[in-house]
């Protein structure tokens, strides 16, 4: 697998999609710092811990774009055949692709952190969160990105048409974000109505004692919370909007997704008929 990684990284350093991703995330980090600076001038207090979360929604688009354009090229140009004909095993081809996509995405996220770490301390009011908790959250974000890379690598190794792959991965992420937003919208519902309400006679009255029928309770709430914690796109929203309830469980789910998608992907790729 070492040879495949050497070849893969040699290609990665010259891949425009990788450097575009790095530049995009770097600019995103810079923009977040600028917004914090602008906000601080208007009296809004930002903490460095907040800035470390604001890349998560952008991050979910990195694996599908990278995998479709970088890994998808191997099928598109037929170069994946060169590896197999040269005697490389299918698990080695799969795992090297996974390592490449995870590394590339982590480097792109690192590009976001570069301006945040360098400029962030000057435009924020300290960490705003315990260092240990922040480390757990950053670790969770990176694991979430790795889990998405695992899923996108699975797609890239099983879908041989680059255009179909790109559309499938992007639609999957958009659908995942939509599901995540819906789930978290339900979780955010207040238990009681707030403010005033007009009754049948047209009189206004205080509604704060009325229960919200959309508020999730019991088993249903647990199920929605699990969906939000489990889905990588759900996690991205939770991290981004600071709605994290079970940070350790989210890390565990990401590891599970990465492991299961890799195991399933290797098995499926071993059986796949290549053209």
């Amino acid at each position, binding site marked *: 697998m070492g040879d495949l990684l050497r070849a893969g990284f040699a290609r990665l350093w010259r891949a425009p999609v990788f450097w575009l991703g790095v530049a995009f995330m770097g600019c995103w980090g810079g923009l977040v710092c600028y917004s914090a600076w602008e906000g601080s001038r208007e009296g809004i207090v930002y903490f460095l811990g907040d800035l470390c979360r604001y890349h998560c929604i952008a991050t979910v688009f990195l694996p599908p774009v990278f995998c479709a354009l970088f890994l998808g090229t191997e099928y598109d140009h037929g170069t994946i055949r060169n590896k197999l004909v040269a005697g490389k095993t299918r698990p080695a081809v799969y795992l090297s692709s996974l390592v490449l996509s995870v590394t590339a995405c982590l480097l792109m996220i690192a590009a976001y952190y570069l301006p945040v770490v360098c400029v962030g301390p000057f435009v924020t009011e300290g960490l705003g969160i315990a260092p240990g908790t922040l480390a757990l959250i950053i670790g969770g974000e990176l694991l979430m990105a790795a889990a998405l890379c695992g899923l996108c690598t699975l797609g890239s190794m099983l879908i041989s048409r680059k255009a179909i792959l790109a559309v499938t991965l992007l639609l999957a992420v958009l659908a995942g974000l939509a599901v995540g937003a819906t789930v978290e919208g339900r979780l955010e519902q207040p238990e009681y109505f707030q403010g005033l309400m007009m009754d049948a006679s047209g009189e206004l009255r205080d509604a704060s004692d009325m229960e919200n029928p959309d508020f999730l309770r019991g088993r249903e709430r647990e199920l929605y919370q699990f969906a939000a914690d489990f889905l990588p796109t759900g996690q991205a929203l939770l991290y981004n909007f600071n709605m994290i309830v079970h940070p350790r469980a989210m890390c565990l789910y990401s590891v599970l997704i990465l492991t299961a998608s890799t195991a399933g992907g290797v098995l499926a790729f071993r059986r796949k008929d290549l*053209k």
Partner: protein
Amino acid sequence: MEYVLETAGLYKRYRHFKALDGLTMRVPKGAIYGLVGRNGAGKTTLIRLICGLQAPTGGHYVLYGRKHTDRDIDRSRRRMGAVVETPSIYLDMSAADNLKQQYRVLGLPSFEGIGELLELVGLENAGKKKARHFSLGMKQRLGIAVALAGDPDFLVLDEPVNGLDPQGIIEIRELILRLNREKQITVLISSHILDELSRLATHYGFIDAGRMVKEMSAQALEAACRKCVRLTVTDANALARVLDGMGAEYKILDSETADVYQKIPVSRLTAALEAEGCELLDMRERDESLESYFVSLVGGGSRG
């Protein structure tokens, strides 16, 4: 004879379609083996199987003495290079960079030999031009160069002259001949351009509907397709005596027919046959081309 590749009853099914139907073949070491068959006969499927891109649904093949199910079949694969259908090259890289990439995949310690390889395929002047801007012939030659990285002993080429102009076809043909003669590389080449194949191949495998119809050497094929006069007589023994007397080269086919491989004076022949008490019933010139031989082997009808 030593064989590089042997297949035994190889099957490949795609749902209800049988792409290979018990195909058995043997590619001798040092040969240029021409795999002949019409579109959909199973040529590319066979190549995909032996390259490890797909797994057979039945039967087996042996590559350099290792069965395809052996754990160390990858070691045999390292001795082969292949161009399957289209050349497998990174279009956004130059010819040299494509080769460097393949050298890295193969784990070769240095890029030594890349210049020589580019020269061998006639791409030494391609410079930094991206493969995307190459002509079809240049792409095909680069694909062959990539397949040749790591000095393979066995080269598999699937329709290498498809879509090439006459000059490109000549260049590829000369390259294959040079590789076979100078580097002793065994070549398996599939094509449905029979005339082109006949200028290269030392052995042939005629494949139809996923089955091997006939395997033969180039000499045997040449003999089968040789220009001759087919004589039908009442007594082939008498004909043999007459032809011996005339010093003619011939081959008795059965008790009534024989092929004569040179021009013979008809009046002298009939007179001599009459003296032997034999009658000449029919006489026709035969000039079977490779195409007509192929059609006679596989039948002219379309596949159902």
